């Protein structure tokens, strides 16, 4: 049974919407600890997934055999009762291969192993007790067919290398991480030697950092932390499934002012970024969206289900981790767009904190609350960076931060990342220029 026959078969048996995906994935991974290769592995996986809608209920199944999956999905859909919806949307067709300079499948495993070990050696400096290099490349070939008439095929390469350095001095351990990657090829590795050194130096520098003061401060947020903030605290609240589930502070706010001086974009079409794609996992073409323009909320991110429910067009944000999972609303490359301030001007404050990097955080999209732990920071006095700080925590209300943005820098920078939602992990990019915020609560838990 081929995918088109499977769609007809499911429609004949009463399905209102049918989607068939097939994926072939190949992956190579190298993990080096202190100069020793601890993992050198490759593999390939393939499989189908079938999703059907019947009487408002979804059935989803995945596995190796298409006919079995159609039967199973129909049975799953019949096992429960949902709210009636009609999937409406445009159909797409076409094919796409991401363009890379050096396709990773044309680089030998020997070379990948050797290069990762060399990168690791660059990070093993004085007080760095432990330095890890993680290299992963993958090629995903995907075909999507659905009963609206979509028929697309794409092959996307992704390559990523990450460094983590653990420095020790007199019972203190500090960690710093750096990462580079994109829908790119092996060129990522060739460009990342300096980044390995940066991670190591930063971990060592942190050993002599002081604890951050607690309280309200004027703040400068670096592109890494501002990027993670806008993804976690704002981006998830702008996913239409969260809005429909009553879990978003942005519900009912389209057309309203949610911030000052700020444009927030989600754009999978930027070539080479980690979260880029031509077609989403539902086969809809990805496109650039201004979610916030001049501080005003313009719209949400959608897949076919949420766009059908809310009477708009899918924004091409329906993404699945792999063939074992159904597409749900996800971000791609999400960022605060560049402004016009220089970094010098941004840092020119009397007293404040410059928070940099991101360790972890939580958000409550329903209430708009967040807490993030930054990797490091500086105390600023009279425009000068006077004291290095470690583990700086920021907390507050997402919309308060957006409303308090005073300056947005010119220096838009992107970081690759992996975003988890409902147990599915997908590659994304976070990004931002430096921003200055009138007032941020520092300290949080301590």
């Amino acid at each position, binding site marked *: 049974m081929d995918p088109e026959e499977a769609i007809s078969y499911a429609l004949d048996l009463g399905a209102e919407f049918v989607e068939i995906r097939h994926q072939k994935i190949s992956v190579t991974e190298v993990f080096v600890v202190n100069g*020793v290769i601890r993992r050198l*592995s*490759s593999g390939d996986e393939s*499989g189908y997934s079938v999703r059907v809608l019947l009487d408002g209920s979804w059935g989803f*199944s995945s*596995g190796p055999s298409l006919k*079995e999956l159609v039967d199973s999905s129909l049975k799953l859909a019949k096992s429960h009762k*949902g709210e009636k919806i009609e999937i409406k949307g445009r159909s797409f067709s076409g094919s796409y291969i991401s363009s890379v300079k050096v396709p990773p499948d044309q680089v030998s495993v020997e070379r990948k192993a050797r290069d990762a070990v060399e990168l690791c050696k660059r990070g093993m400096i004085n007080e760095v007790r432990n330095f890890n290099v993680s290299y992963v490349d993958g090629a995903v070939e995907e075909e999507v067919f659905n009963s609206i008439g979509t028929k697309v095929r794409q092959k996307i390469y992704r390559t990523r290398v990450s460094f983590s350095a653990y420095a*020790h001095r007199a019972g203190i351990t500090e960690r710093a991480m750096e990462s580079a990657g994109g829908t790119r090829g092996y060129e990522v590795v060739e460009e990342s030697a300096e980044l390995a050194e940066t991670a190591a130096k930063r971990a060592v520098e942190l050993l002599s950092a002081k604890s951050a003061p607690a309280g309200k401060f004027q703040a400068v947020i670096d592109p890494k932390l501002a990027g993670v903030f806008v993804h976690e605290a704002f981006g998830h609240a702008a996913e239409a499934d969260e809005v429909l589930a009553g879990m978003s502070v942005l519900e009912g706010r389209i057309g309203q002012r949610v911030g000052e001086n700020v444009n927030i974009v989600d754009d999978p079409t930027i070539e080479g970024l980690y979260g880029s794609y031509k077609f989403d996992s539902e086969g809809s073409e990805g496109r650039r969206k201004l979610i916030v323009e001049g501080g005003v909320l313009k719209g949400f991110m959608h897949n076919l289900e949420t766009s059908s429910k809310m009477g708009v067009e899918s924004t091409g944000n329906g993404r699945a981790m792999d063939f074992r999972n*159904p597409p749900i609303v996800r971000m791609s490359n999400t960022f605060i767009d560049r402004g016009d301030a220089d970094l010098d001007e941004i840092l020119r404050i009397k007293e404040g904190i410059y928070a940099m990097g991101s360790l972890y955080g939580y958000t409550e999209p329903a209430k708009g609350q967040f807490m993030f732990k930054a990797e490091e920071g500086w105390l600023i006095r009279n425009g000068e960076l006077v004291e290095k700080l470690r583990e700086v925590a920021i907390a507050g209300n997402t919309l308060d931060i957006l409303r308090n943005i005073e300056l947005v820098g010119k220096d838009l920078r992107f970081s690759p990342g992996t975003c988890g939602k409902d147990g599915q992990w997908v590659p994304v990019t976070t990004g931002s220029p430096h921003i200055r915020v009138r007032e941020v609560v520092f300290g949080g838990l301590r």
Partner: protein
Amino acid sequence: MMEKEIFIQRGRVISVHAERGVIKRAEERRFEGAGIRVIKGKKMGFYFTTDLKRIDDALRKAEEICDANMEDKDLKGLPDLGKSNVKGIFDSKIAEIDVSEAVEIAKRIIEAAKISEKIYSISCDVTLSHVKTEIYGRGEQEEERTFVGISSYITARDGMKSSTGMEMNSGRSLLSVDPEFVGRKAAELALMSLDSIQIETGDYPVLIHPLASPNFIGFLVSAAANAENIQQGRSFLTGKIGHLMGREEISVVDDGTLEGGVGTRGFDDEGVATRRTEVISSGVFKSAIHNSYTAFKEGVESTGNATRTYNSIPSISMNNVLLEAKGIEAEEDELLSMKKGVILYSTDDTPNLANGEFSGLIALGFLVEKGEIKSGLREVGFGVNMMEFLKKVELVGKKRRSVGSVIAPEIRVSSMRLAGK
């Protein structure tokens, strides 16, 4: 000489998810895949595939990767196979279950949660799996295991007040979960938390509920006593074998042979027989948990804690973790008898692996005054160092509860720093 290992997993997972009291998704996944390890001297190669018809091809690729690899002086070959006699890890009812029965379980959770008009939103998950693991290459082993996990997440509202409650059950047989309890209890917790307060910053006695035990003793075994983390200097337990970590009544054990345990299995994912390992014995840190690589590096035996899926090389994790505390066990009344204390019911945080500092936020907690639960807690942070945690234990409950693969009592610690107003 070449050693090889072919690890095959085949299985089926059914999952049902409900939101706002309505079934949103019913999913079925069937999978099969093989992971192949090849070792020649001090070099290893690994290749995985979902195409079981091409095992020979995958074996050849693993060998190519092995040849391309560099030597690792700590690599000392594959372990001997073994199998413990374990009971209660397979339930044919789960293996043969129809999705409609999983939907029924979800509906029972939802119905049981409708205990008040203030219950605003009911979410729940039901997961059922049946997996067969086979290991070939040095002899043959196979085992079939089943699993069931159910959980609920409930929001209550009353005017402007809003709160959440959660509950879960898991096991290896359908009989080990109670949908009515999971629905009702989460709803009760949400209602109890509607009136929640901030408390003054200070030191309080704290009763840690079993639901939070994976973040405390689960973490202690799975992450801190993980030999890989220790050998790499990532864990605060590096160099701490023989150190006193708790009072002498307390032992923390990893046991992969416990009847019916979520983490029970006859052999680990390298084919090593599971066993009982005293990680903390009479208060003293005695042993890490190992797979064969970390064990052989130290010249000890694997503890049977290798964990993997077919597409990954074995790492290390806990089997079943138990806290034993003979002589300081108490009934519920006595545990609650605090003049002014706190129940830490759940947290989303975990300790800092590097230094053992555990500072987090109480996700669900209650204030106790004169032995009675007074109100919920809001925005209360807590701080404790995991090297000191087991020294502060005053009493533990007589009853044990399994939360995933951690089997713990309620644990009362004499004092913890809590940050509130």
